[in-house]
């Protein structure tokens, strides 16, 4: 036996490796609902997308859109009580939704991993950094303690932590936020997972550090050929770092497209509103921030029709009664869920009609075109 290996006590519940063709991850009509006293809260209400190896998909939405629930639901991290899931999430052909706890545990860390939002709380405060990394290494890899420490050191160095040797013996509170997040990333990529979830990885960090962390994620992803699901509320974050983007609203995907296409030819009013709300350097100082008026709909007892209708400047009666399905557009790989998509003459007519009628959201658009 090689001196770097040890007796393995790793569970034998594993999936057989799947063929290399076909997407890495296929999510088919995934639904996740929480049982509450008032009823079933549909946090994720039918999401479908697929992800190829090595590619990044950005999932964008505001708080309450269900994006965090989505990533946790795919990975299977949600508790079992009071949660109802349906649909499929196929990782290399194996359904994560129906997988047993043991099967999932074999996958977590080794095939898929997550980088969480708040590095302050997602690291164990009373455990040394080094141990937190070697723990995941020894869980999935058949290696000795010493070798795992070597690997941990190399990992820390690869995520750009200076004086890595010293850091191995330090505790999380001795590091800055940015550094902690690097550690979290190191832990996530330690065993070389094929799929990485990044759930708002920079929201809790200083602006100056955000770009560094995103760059790091991108670099690691390229080097290790990982697929990445980048969840964020900030369109700016995914603009340069995702291959495809899915915009979520009220638990559904309302628009999905490759990044360039989305920015060039966005069709859903919500996407447009998100785009508008990004403050622009080129605007004169003291320009008012454009917020999206209104609030997300109730996910327990949602109103009929399109979920965005209450806040949409282009809303028409049809929108309020019939929910638009996800329709493909002329552009490749571009789909959206709207009766009066942005950029069409019907859309402009709808806006003018609403402005004449004095609809608040439409009025806010006056002069902005």
């Amino acid at each position, binding site marked *: 036996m090689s001196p770097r290996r040890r007796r393995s006590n790793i569970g034998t519940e594993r999936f057989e490796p799947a063929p290399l063709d076909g997407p890495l991850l296929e999510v088919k009509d995934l639904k996740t609902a929480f049982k509450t006293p008032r009823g079933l809260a549909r946090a994720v209400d039918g999401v479908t997308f697929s992800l190829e190896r090595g590619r990044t998909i950005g999932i964008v939405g505001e708080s309450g859109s269900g994006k965090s629930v989505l990533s946790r639901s795919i990975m299977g991290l949600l508790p079992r009580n009071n949660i109802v899931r349906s649909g499929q999430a196929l990782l290399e052909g194996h359904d994560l939704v129906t997988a047993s706890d043991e099967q999932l545990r074999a996958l977590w860390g080794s095939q898929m991993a997550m980088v969480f939002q708040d590095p302050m709380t*997602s690291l164990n405060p009373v455990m040394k950094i080094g141990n937190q990394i070697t723990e995941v290494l020894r869980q999935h890899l058949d290696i000795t303690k010493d070798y795992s420490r070597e690997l941990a050191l190399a990992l820390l160095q690869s995520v750009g932590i200076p004086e890595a040797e010293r850091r191995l013996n330090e505790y999380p509170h001795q590091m800055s936020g940015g550094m902690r997040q690097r550690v979290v990333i190191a832990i996530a990529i330690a065993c070389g997972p094929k799929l990485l979830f990044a759930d708002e990885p920079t929201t809790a960090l200083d602006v100056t550090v955000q770009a560094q962390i995103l760059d790091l994620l991108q670099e690691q992803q390229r080097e290790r050929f990982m697929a990445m699901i980048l969840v964020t509320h900030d369109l700016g974050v995914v603009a340069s770092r995702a291959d495809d983007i899915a915009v979520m609203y009220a638990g559904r995907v309302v628009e999905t497209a490759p990044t360039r296409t989305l920015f060039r030819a966005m069709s859903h009013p919500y996407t447009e509103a998100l785009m508008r709300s990004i403050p622009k350097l080129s605007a004169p100082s003291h320009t008012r921030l454009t917020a999206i008026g209104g609030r997300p709909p109730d996910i327990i007892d949602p109103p009929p029709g399109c979920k965005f209708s209450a806040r949409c400047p282009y809303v028409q009666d049809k929108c309020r009664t019939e929910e638009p399905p996800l329709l493909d557009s002329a552009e490749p790989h571009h789909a959206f869920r709207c009766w009066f998509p942005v950029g069409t003459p019907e859309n402009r007519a709808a806006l003018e009609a609403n402005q004449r009628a004095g609809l608040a959201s439409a009025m806010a658009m006056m002069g902005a075109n």
Partner: protein
Amino acid sequence: MRTAFFKLIRLVVVVFIVTFLSFSMLKLQEATTGSTIIEKIAPFGSPAAKQQLADSLHLDDPFFVQYGRWLGNAVQGDFGLKYTGTGDNATTGTPVSTIVGKKLPVSIELMIYAQILALLFALPLGIYTAYRNGSRFDKITNIVMFAMLAMPAFLAGLALQLWAAKNPNAGFPTQYTGVDDFPLTPFTGENFKQMLLPTVSLAIAQIAVYMRLLRSDMIATLQEDFITTAKSKGIPARRVLMRHAFRPSSLTLLTVAGLNVGALIGGAIIVEQIFNLPGIGDELVRSILGSQVIETQAIIAIIAIIYVLVNFLVDILYTVLDPRIRHARAIA
């Protein structure tokens, strides 16, 4: 290190104040109860002996001089006498330090046993019910623990004593009746027989206290983000519980258990009384009943000093255990 130094200073100050207060109470009671100290400790002494006693105790000296003298003696281990003579021999007695030397170990042993027993039950129960929060086992355990909380040591002690009386075949004495030194050596049959019932009486409420503390801390910890992180690393549930969740959750429990070490030495008084164990608490009661006020005050001071010392040690231990505090203090 600086803070440890300050804590030490504080410790010394508190010890001073504690001994001062206990000494003052001794003198105070003359004022409130009217009878003099001499009357209390040697009621059957001859007038000559009483006078001799009064002289030797320097009871007419100013208050602070007396206190200073007491303190000086105490530092050397001289806590005065327990007066046992009568008539002209009323000035004789046994040194309190000797008595304490024999009785304190009994109380300490009882306290250690009770803590071990309590933790033995509380740890696994606390962890498991936190993990399976809301399950039937959890609910039933909670009800049982709630009842156990309401079972103070004396109730449990009396109940067990009753059981022992009604079941002599079980071999447990209802009280300690030995004359010679108490069988202190653990793991001997005699020690076990004498100590089991008192230990259980003390431990019952403690189990509930510890278990509920641990459970509530564990439940809170299990909701923290880093537990989800650990889970997402593929770590099995048992390891997550023991390696990740338990350590941060155990701090409160450890502190409380540590403090109980000090508290139980004094608090085992009642159990010792019930089972007639020759511990320091029992001795305290005897001295009260026998009006041996000098001994009483000495024992009170000793128990208080131990209590203060233990708390101080727990405080230091706490700093060592939680790395955040260690570093926060180092930076501060």
